[in-house]
């Protein structure tokens, strides 16, 4: 903890936007940071074998509840975001409790959560009169788009610092879990639930704790995304595609490493941007096409992810 390198890097990251002010790269960095935080949130439970394919649902709830509360009820995101987090946590409890209580694990759990994100998307579309459905939803700009009360900022630098802070908090939470008794309990559960229960671990309670934490963090990511982009739609913040994207990115980066999700975010977002720029408006969908192929190849040939493989190679040498 007294190693200087992480602190120097941290300082460099904070100083970055003051030195290098080009808006587009800053925008990409903000997007990367927000998604890194979202992916880290997923990995907080994903690393323990609780493979949720439904985190798109939590992100969607986070984004839409915040935006709806602001537009419909004038509730500031400072209150709206906690509400969204609570809503997301409640949803997580509702789905996870019966799953864990009745030992729904593995494939079953993944499929149930997959359906969850699909249903959240359906709900958003079905309530199109309030949410705009597939056309998307825009939070109203307040004071010209620059207001602390409305949590809207025009300056990319401000958003960069906010995103950086939240990302750092996400990593801190990851480490807190990593160093806690919860981690050991969950690893024991992941290996053998019955044996863990026999040694006094409250299996359902421990699993619920991590699930609620993960869902809450993901909801925050969704809310931040909403406030930054000032536009949300069911496909960009919820649904199966988003859920899959999360799992992919973490696996690509490295599931058991703290910075794995971040590396995954960097790789996947940069890749998507490069593809988007190369194919441009000429062909819709080509970028996702290449993305999909590359991801399948990755899963087959680099199952431990980039960071995971790199660390394993270093340990072996």
């Amino acid at each position, binding site marked *: 903890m007294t190693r200087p390198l992480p602190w120097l890097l941290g300082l460099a990251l904070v100083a970055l936007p003051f030195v290098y002010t080009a808006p587009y790269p800053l925008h990409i960095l903000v997007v990367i940071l927000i998604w890194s935080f979202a992916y880290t949130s997923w990995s907080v439970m994903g690393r323990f074998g609780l493979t949720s394919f439904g985190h798109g649902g939590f992100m969607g709830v986070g984004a839409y509840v915040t935006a709806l509360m602001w537009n419909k009820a004038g509730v500031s995101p400072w209150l709206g975001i906690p509400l969204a987090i609570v809503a997301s946590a409640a949803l997580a409890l509702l789905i996870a409790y019966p799953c864990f209580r*009745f030992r729904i694990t593995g494939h079953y759990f993944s499929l149930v959560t997959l*359906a969850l994100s699909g249903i959240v998307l359906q709900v958003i579309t079905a309530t199109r009169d309030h949410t705009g459905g597939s056309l998307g939803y825009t939070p109203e700009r307040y004071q010209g788009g620059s207001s602390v009360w409305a949590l809207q900022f025009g300056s990319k630098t401000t958003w960069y610092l906010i995103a950086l802070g939240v990302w750092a908090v996400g990593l801190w939470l990851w480490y807190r879990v990593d160093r806690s008794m919860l981690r050991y309990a969950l690893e024991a559960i992941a290996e053998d639930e019955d044996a863990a229960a026999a040694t006094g671990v409250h299996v359902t309670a421990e699993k619920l704790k991590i699930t609620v934490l993960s869902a809450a963090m993901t909801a925050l990511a969704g809310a931040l995304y909403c406030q930054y982009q000032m536009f949300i739609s069911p496909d960009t913040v919820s649904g199966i595609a988003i859920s899959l994207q999360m799992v992919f990115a973490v696996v690509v980066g490295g599931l058991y490493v703290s910075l794995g999700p971040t590396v995954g975010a960097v790789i996947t977002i940069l890749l998507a941007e490069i593809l988007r720029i190369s194919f441009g408006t000429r062909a819709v969908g080509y970028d996702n096409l290449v993305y999909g192929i590359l991801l399948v190849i990755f899963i*087959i040939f680099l199952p431990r992810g980039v960071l995971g493989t790199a660390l394993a190679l270093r340990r072996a040498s």
Partner: protein
Amino acid sequence: MGFDIYLLEALINGVLLGGVLALLSLGLNLIFGVIDVVWICYAELIMLGMYAMYFLYTVYHAPLLVAAAACIAGVAVLGVLLHLLVIAPLLGAAPINQLLATGGVLFFLQSAATVMFGIEFKNLGLRLPVLKAAGMFISYSRLLAFAVALIGMVLVYLFLSRTYTGAAIRAIAQDRQIMPLMGVDSQRIYVITSALGGGLAGLAACLLVLQYDVHPFVGLTFGPITFLICVLGSLGNFAGGFVAAFVFAEIIALGGLYSDLEWGYVLAFAFFIVMMFVRPQGLMARRS
């Protein structure tokens, strides 16, 4: 009086929908029971089958039965390709990786469809008559889909119970390791099962395209429901999936009666959650 008729009509439509959903869950259960993998992209295979029907019948004016046969064969081949290219290399890998790989294929297929066919909704353009009986309107295409789905399931049942390969498929789901002692080449059985799963998806595509438009993301409407059906009926359990399919179909039909179709799906999911609390025995998970 009139209200009762609508209810009855919805109930009947539910049964008709149930037939097709049961066919879908059969395919998914087959793959899971035999190969122990979930094809998350199963609905996307169906989507491609629907596009195949559209092009063969509407654009190239092939006779309907020829188009259907080609569609079934084509998606069967897709199933085999999926197994050989994506599943087989990952048979020993962690289940999360297997799920992810088929998830990647889901991404890929949706994008491929977007690139090749565009995002507009396409319709088969086949206007089948609507039957009027006792004040209810039952669409002929629904009846046809139900009948064909049932026939398909009976054929699969006969195949599984009366042929050597069918017996091997049932056996491999019960004890994978000793199959070689029976003289069975497990890899061949996986390929045959993948073809069968793909073929069933192709058949489902033929039936669904009669009633619904096709677009690259149409798989998202019935994919999640199929997964829920299989989970509720117990993954790999054919009879369970069959029953669960009809239960879900009725809920969707009834939900659609009182509100938009999307609420039918939401209601089905809510029902699923309730079932998980109420009847966990129906969901006793096999440790995977």
